[in-house]
């Protein structure tokens, strides 16, 4: 998103003034996320899929499951890779071509949050040790951009994985052969939920929308698991946090995270 310093500064003043009075531009409470709706199975030909709408930000995630040759040092585990692309339909500022640093960071933070939570039991995705494992690719396509892509992509991918099924393979002479039409459950251990917060002045607000994103001082994304533990974190933006703010953010991430987790659970039930 481009910068126009005069407009930006006016918008920033307006947002900060409101926050100082305890209000946000769109009427939300500081620790309130935007409306979240998740539809699963939107790409029926993929092994799992979901569309997440977080306010006016919208992401489609599709899961592809394929047999992969494992890396030499991790032959006893399956593979999980989450990616993210901001489609040019999503916002006038999006440029096509190789991903720049912000998109690389987006994809890696989404990937790490899900991977570090141990959401999928990777040990159960081995077909032939050191030779063939299940690879799970969860690709996020951002279709509309109104800020906080970190959480929207994370929720879309998490729901897509929860809705996914693993094709069944029989092993013949150490070679996996697909059994057409049969599937097993994806081995889920926990549901990771990322919560992104912006610091604007001394205020911490949850799920910043595009206006807040443009003028924030710093941001933090904290991912928690079903046990309420913290599994991943990423600070961003051109300023910092105090120790007290970091503690407060961790508490918010746990409480907001548990609400989001319920929405994700209900949206993916019956899959």
């Amino acid at each position, binding site marked *: 998103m481009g910068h126009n310093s005069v407009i930006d500064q006016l918008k920033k003043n307006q947002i900060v003034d409101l926050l100082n009075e305890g209000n946000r531009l769109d009427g939300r409470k500081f620790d309130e996320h935007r409306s979240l709706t998740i539809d699963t199975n*939107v*790409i*029926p*030909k*993929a092994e799992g*899929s979901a569309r997440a709408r977080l306010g*006016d930000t*919208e992401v*489609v*995630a*599709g*899961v*592809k499951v*394929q047999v992969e040759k494992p890396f030499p040092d991790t032959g006893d585990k399956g593979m999980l890779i989450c*990616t993210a*692309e901001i*489609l*040019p*339909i*999503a*916002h*006038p500022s999006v440029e*096509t071509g190789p991903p720049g640093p912000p998109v690389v960071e987006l994809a890696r933070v989404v990937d790490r949050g899900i991977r570090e939570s141990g959401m999928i039991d990777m040990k159960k995705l081995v077909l032939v040790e050191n030779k063939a494992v299940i690879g799970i*690719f969860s*690709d996020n*396509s951002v*279709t*509309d*951009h*109104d800020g906080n892509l970190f959480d929207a992509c994370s929720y879309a991918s998490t729901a897509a994985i929860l809705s996914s099924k693993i094709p069944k393979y029989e092993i013949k002479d150490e070679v996996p052969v697909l059994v057409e039409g049969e599937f097993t459950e994806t081995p889920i251990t926990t549901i990771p939920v990322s919560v992104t917060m912006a610091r604007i002045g001394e205020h911490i607000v949850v799920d910043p929308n595009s206006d807040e994103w443009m003028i924030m001082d710093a941001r933090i994304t904290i991912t928690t698991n079903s046990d309420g533990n913290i599994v991943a974190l990423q600070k961003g933006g051109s300023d910092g946090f105090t120790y007290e703010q970091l503690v407060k953010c961790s508490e918010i991430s746990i409480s907001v995270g548990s609400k989001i987790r319920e929405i994700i659970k209900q949206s993916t039930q019956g899959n």
Partner: protein
Amino acid sequence: MGGRDPNVVLLDENGKRSDGRTVNETRKVTIKAGVLKNANGSAYIEFGENKILAGIYGPRDVHPKHLSNPDTGILRCRYHMSPFSVGERKNPAPSRREVEISKVIKEALEPAVILDQFPRTVVDIFLEILQADGGTRCAALAAASVALADAGIPMRDMVSACAAGKVADTVILDVNNEEDQAGQADMPMGYMPNLKKITLLQLDGVLTPEEYKKCVEVGIDGCNQVYEIQKKALEEKYFSKGDQ
């Protein structure tokens, strides 16, 4: 025209195709206009199992500047497949196939849009294939037309689109993925019904001169059918909800 497996029954004794359609029947097509918040115009199409988003930005400044034309606005088009849109995960980098399809769709729309009044600007058409099942270029072209209209771009006509083809030595309408893989010919077409102009036409596979004529005729008929659905999508947005 990949495999051409002769064992697949593409047309049974009752004239029914593998998915139950008759030879002159398109798959189910639904189009919704105005589905995106940020884009200047947009449309979502389901064309059989194809699921495609079209978004329009512009008229707007051209970057880099030297691509702009001082006499008229220009059109750009990106046709792109999401990694999860096809059977085996697709590498997100644009393939040569996507580059070519982007070009033929752009050239299919150029005769329709009127950009003289927007010199030095560009209208960008972004087409995202979320799920592919044969005939994506036609479905994407049909969605792009609706999205251009939704964006308020002046147009001589909407471009409609549908493929004809040949399976089991019979000319058929709207080739699906299975028919494309195992069939004898696929002829995607783009057509402006009011101006009676074919603006996209490609062919893979063998046709006699007579079959060729039949294919073009059948394709035009399919485009006319899709055109009605395109118009309906715009009516639903602009008259049922009463906005604009």
